[in-house]
């Protein structure tokens, strides 16, 4: 660019002298968010618990004392604390600890994968609809309305029921379930942001649609969309487990918390503690995601002053 100061003869130094200017760093938005989260014990504890769950799922092959798919019929249904089986054994004599560790993998996948894919698809669609408005918006939003006309569990069950059981179909049906709400949220957030003056200003500066989206709109819509999505992960875990519980989700002998809950249901009168374990883990994981979502939401709320 040309220098603004040169013709004016003003007291300002030349532009080039600004190249190496020492600039005072500002903590910035994310630093503020980080600071707020660090002051929020509930979110920190939830994150820590979740981290433990995620790590143990990832490290399941290392941590698990037994093969989660091989049991010994002679030591079936042993209670928590039974010798050699810290958390007991299930109805076919498989080690509960190992199955719970491995089960976390499928349950977390069932929670995170559909929501992530739905975020990718639904977020793009919603942001596109909100950003361009007009006919594009109408087409995307009306189609979304149709999907949105199904209560989420009903849609998941219907799709799984028709496609058949299995992990892939579970993930597919849950993805389809989460696209419409994400499209809606993304669209409404984007429409709001798009009508703010700074986007107009950026447009007035000659930026193309892509640059506007990339630099002006996206950074401002991603955070609220992400926060909303985090709470969906919790719902996804519960729904996936619910599908398995109905016999429509992943199929036996997969180690998955919902499926384990279903097959251990029979043991609830015999060993309630054992039967409750997968339920407790589903609950804990989903609770953590919800609490983290809440924590992020209030930490990202600009109206609150630091």
């Amino acid at each position, binding site marked *: 660019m040309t220098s603004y100061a040169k013709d004016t003869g003003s007291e300002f130094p030349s532009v080039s002298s600004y190249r190496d200017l020492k600039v005072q760093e500002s903590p910035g938005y994310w630093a503020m968010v980080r600071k707020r989260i660090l002051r929020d014990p509930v979110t920190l504890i939830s994150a820590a618990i979740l981290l433990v769950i995620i790590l143990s799922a990832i490290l399941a092959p290392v941590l698990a004392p037994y093969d989660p798919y091989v049991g010994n019929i002679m030591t079936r249904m042993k209670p928590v604390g039974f010798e050699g089986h810290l958390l007991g054994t299930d109805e076919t004599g498989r080690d509960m600890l190992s199955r719970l560790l491995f089960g976390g993998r499928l349950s977390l996948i069932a929670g995170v994968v559909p929501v992530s894919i739905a975020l990718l698809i639904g977020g793009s669609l919603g942001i596109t609809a909100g950003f361009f408005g007009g006919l594009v918006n109408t087409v995307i939003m009306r189609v979304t309305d149709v999907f949105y006309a199904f209560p989420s569990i009903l849609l998941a069950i219907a799709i799984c029921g028709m496609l058949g059981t299995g992990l892939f179909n579970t993930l597919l049906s849950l993805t389809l379930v989460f696209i419409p709400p994400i499209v809606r949220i993304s669209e409404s957030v984007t429409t709001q942001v798009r009508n703010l003056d700074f986007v107009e200003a950026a447009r007035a500066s000659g930026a193309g649609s892509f640059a506007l989206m990339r630099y002006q709109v996206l950074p401002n819509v991603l955070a609220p969309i992400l926060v909303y999505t985090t709470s969906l992960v919790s719902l996804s875990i519960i729904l996936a487990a619910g599908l398995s519980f109905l016999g429509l989700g992943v199929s036996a*002998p997969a180690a998955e918390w919902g499926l384990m809950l279903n097959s251990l249901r029979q043991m609830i009168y015999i060993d309630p503690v054992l039967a409750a374990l997968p339920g407790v883990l589903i609950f804990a994981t989903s609770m953590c995601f919800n609490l983290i979502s809440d924590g992020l939401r209030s930490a990202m709320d600009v109206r609150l002053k630091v």
Partner: protein
Amino acid sequence: MKKSVTGKIAALLIGTMLSAGTALADGGTLRIAMTSSDVPVTTGMPNNGFEGMRFLGYPVFEPLVDWDLSSADKPADIRPGLAESWEIDPEDTKRWIFHLRPDVEFHDGSAFDADAVVWNLERFFDETSPQFDQAGSAIVRGRNPILDSWEKIDDMTVAITTKYPASYFPYIMSYMLIASPAAFETANSDWNEYGKAPSGTGPFKVTNVTPRVSVELSRNDDYWNPDRIAKLDHIQLFPMPEPTTRLAALRSGQVDWIEVPPPDAIPGLEGAGFNVVTNTYPHVWPWEFDTTEGSPFADVRVRQAANYAVNREGIVALMNGTAAPAKGFFDVDSPLFGSPENDYTYDPEKARALLAEAGYGPDNPVHAKILTSTSGSGQMLPVQMNEYLQQTMAESGFDIDLEMTEWGSLLVALRNPPGTAPTMDADALNISFASSDISYLAKYFHSKNASPVSQNWGAFGTPETDALLDQIETTFDAEKQAELTAELHAKIVDQAPWLFIVHDLNPRAMSEHVKGFVSAQSWFQDLTSVYIEE
């Protein structure tokens, strides 16, 4: 006014007398939790397999040839039902003559006679008749593939001809129940309407049907056989596919009787004062292999390997002793078991060796998909048991996929040949079967009964076994028949058209108030002797 007062007094008096009268005959109400996921249809041809027959078949409707369910000590056999007697036409071994029981009335008051029998035969076997019933027909024809034609000889005599001679035909006739034609008129010739107020000849009549919720049966005081007039006033039947739900319902006093309690809960139930009744009955819980081209089980070595790969003792342990190992269609102790070359012990090494011979190995396991139901008549605990099988068979080189469906859908799959849509690409069906008589051997193992004709789903058949079966069908001498049957059975064990797994011991749990129940060695039970004692 006056009249009304006297009327009231009269009503009161009569009421007192009536209640006194009923108090004498008060057998109470028996509430039963079934394993089916729906109320079996009440049109006289119940679906939901033999559980449907057990509760909404024989108690309400009767066959020409009935079952004797009065003893717990010996396998139940057939006895005269709506036919007083039957014999083979001396000139034609395919023609059976049934002499009908006189003075029998349907619940609606209409008379039972040869026309009623013909009308019912048309219901199932004549697609052009107005009373043709697709759903019922599908079930009856599956169980009775050999009926060819019929003729009314006189009002009380009917002749039925089979497609080929079959010594066991009376057994097959026990699965066709007789419903009232008159009631069909009342129901505007609509089987669906009929099911709301059906009419049979049995010791109970259907008095209330709430779809998917319950059926209420009430005692038929006018039952033709005074010895079998029911003691119970009412029976309420509830579908409860979830074992846990059944257990909770029994333990919380919502029902008096549950079918198939979870085996692990049995000690607890007994400890809490419930009676758990078990008895042997002609039951086998197998995988029925698809033996046609393209299935891994087309190869006899794979089928045998599978039989060696199963830890039957493990399943018995899993079932907490409510099952017995099965090494063939019949129990090993049965005289009909014969002497097969293969003794299917748990022998993974032998299984692996057989698989290696058939071209499989550790890096190339046998991939197979098993279709089963989550619950159902005689299915025991299909999910857990199959999961266990899947687990143990993996050691011997089987990579098993499980597909769970609903009991009704599994029955439909059984009626359709492998590879068709209802079978969901399964390589084997896990469905339990009756093994009560030799009629089943032909149904399950003769190539002429390959699905969709009858229940030989996997289209098994060898010239040798077919020939033996043909011979048995035309052998009317009992001793000779038994000899041939044992010979056939040994061959079937060696050919392994099924994965023989266990025989069920048929656990059912009931509250201590349930009295008079005799656990027959049969799929069916007599409820007329049962009563509730508070």
